[in-house]
């Protein structure tokens, strides 16, 4: 066999392996260069220019885009909406998912049916299921208002009022995303060794105690993963708000941060401002990612 010597640490590599590795890594490296390196450099450069979608002007403007964004009330509105959306959605989603997962962790009859039912909304395209919910939310002929009227409760304007539009989107998002977290919690619960629970029972723990004192602490890695990934995914939500409220909802009440970026860049053609905002969002997401790494390391392990 042929060996080629590399001076640095005197390690020898086989020529055939080097050649194969070069060929096999080329496609991967090309995707990384064209879909990661070049776009990241470009987006940083663009955020300092007045790059426009419609005209060929592109001059360096310094921090003007950042200045504009930080003084734009719509940006702050979209950031506020996004945080509100994330807070409510995560609270509902995480607690309901945990509840369902704990129930499914028992040997209930029809478990397969329940798993399919709770997970079904996750697999269908969001655009398709959004169409169903647009009708649900129709104030005149939507089934939600008709049910409310039938049982004598006040009706709502749902997507058509600035007070309820964001909440309507959240309800849809919880319905759509619940099953995903149920699956994660369920996998976490089933990963807890039975011997731990048995040991607790022998020590005289009630089912309630063995849940809150043994299972829940052991579930922390999954819980922290679900919550931080949940925050990151909430920050990136776009599809359902774009399908259900393409114009940002009444009084921009459903304008989330990604919708703001999309609107700046592709509706108004201000690519520079869009680039600046997307970088701001990137740093917010990065902060949460690093937080997850920090928290993740400190949590309980099974061993």
């Amino acid at each position, binding site marked *: 066999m042929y060996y080629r010597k590399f001076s640095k640490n005197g*390690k020898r590599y*086989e020529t*055939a*392996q080097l050649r194969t*590795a070069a060929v*096999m890594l080329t*496609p*991967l*490296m090309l*995707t*990384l260069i064209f*879909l*990661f390196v*070049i*776009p*990241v450099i470009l*987006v940083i450069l*663009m955020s300092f220019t007045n790059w426009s979608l419609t005209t060929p002007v592109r001059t360096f403007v310094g921090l003007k885009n950042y200045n504009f964004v930080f003084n734009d009330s719509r940006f702050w509105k979209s950031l506020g909406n996004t945080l509100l959306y994330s807070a409510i959605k995560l609270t509902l989603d995480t607690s309901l998912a945990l509840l369902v997962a704990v129930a*499914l962790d*028992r*040997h*209930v*009859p029809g478990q397969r049916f*329940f*798993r*399919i039912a*709770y*997970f*079904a*909304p996750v*697999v*269908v*395209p*969001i*655009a*398709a*299921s959004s*169409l*169903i919910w647009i*009708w*649900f939310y129709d104030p005149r*002929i939507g*089934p939600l208002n*008709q049910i409310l009227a*039938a049982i004598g409760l006040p009706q709502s304007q749902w997507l058509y009022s600035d007070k309820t539009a964001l909440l309507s989107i959240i309800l849809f998002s919880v319905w759509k995303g619940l099953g*995903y977290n149920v*699956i*994660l919690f369920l996998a976490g619960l089933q990963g807890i060794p039975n011997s731990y629970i048995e040991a607790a029972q022998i020590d005289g723990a009630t089912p309630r105690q063995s849940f809150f004192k043994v299972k829940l602490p052991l579930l922390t890695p*999954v819980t922290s993963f679900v919550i931080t990934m949940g925050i990151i995914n909430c920050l*990136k939500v*776009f599809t359902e708000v774009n399908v259900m409220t*393409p114009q940002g909802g009444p009084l921009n009440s459903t304008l989330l941060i*990604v919708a703001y*970026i999309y609107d700046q860049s*592709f509706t108004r053609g201000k*690519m520079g401002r*869009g680039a600046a905002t*997307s970088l701001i969002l990137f740093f917010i*997401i*990065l902060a949460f990612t690093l937080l997850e790494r920090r928290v993740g390391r400190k949590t309980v392990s099974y061993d």
Partner: protein
Amino acid sequence: MKNSAFGHFWRRYHIGTFLLLIPGAALMIFPFFWMALSAFKTSADVYQYPPKWLPSSFKWDNFAAVFSTIPFLRFYLNSIITSVVQTFLIIMISIMGGFALTKLDFPGRSKIYTFMESSMYVPEVVTMIPLFLLVSSVGLVDSYAGIILPQLSSAFTTILLMSFFSSIPNDLLDAAKIDGCGYYAILFKIVVPNSRTAISTAALFSFLGAWRSYMWPLIVTNSVQLRTLPIGLKYLVQETSSEYQVMMAASLMAIVPILIVYILAEKEFVQSITLTGLKS
């Protein structure tokens, strides 16, 4: 009740839990039933008060209306073509890259891995603006290549496959090498057949991602002929103006195939979530 046969049955089969799960499950699947029934309703059924739960007759008019309003089959075809090609390319890139990074020895291996891993920190929102400029500067806006190529990020699936490839014993590969197998033969005759489950999980994951993909196809397509299914459905809302029964027929046709695949391959779907979710 504690010692009665009923009490035993109640606790043994967790009937209380079962009864609690029923209304939740009903809420989860109610929208699908509503959609399926409403796809057959007439406009009069939809506007009737008090609401009608069942259509007055099962006619296929709404489905015909979908095909006459929008080129629905074309949207379907676009979605199938882009998703299949995208999945195939991502899996090929990941198989080769993952093999090189786990089973071949070359300088800078861990640096390339870190580089690849860091690409996952940058969300799609950040790269879509410069990618749009790149794609339009080479004239690929409104083309299949323009939809597919920018969505070929393969870091995630590569890392997923790597964890399986590294569990294949090196002795097996060395034995093949002694028998005169080249590295390509080793990859496609030993590693790939031994990781069939992992590869199909990764493929399912990529395909679902491509099939549901929304933001990029929305940005990069202008002409109606190139819309994928999700984009076509989005514009259908404007094009039918509250003809909900037609929207439901379209939505039903978009949802049913993927729902059937899901029910048949439920285990694999769940696995693709737990592996991709908890591994990272």
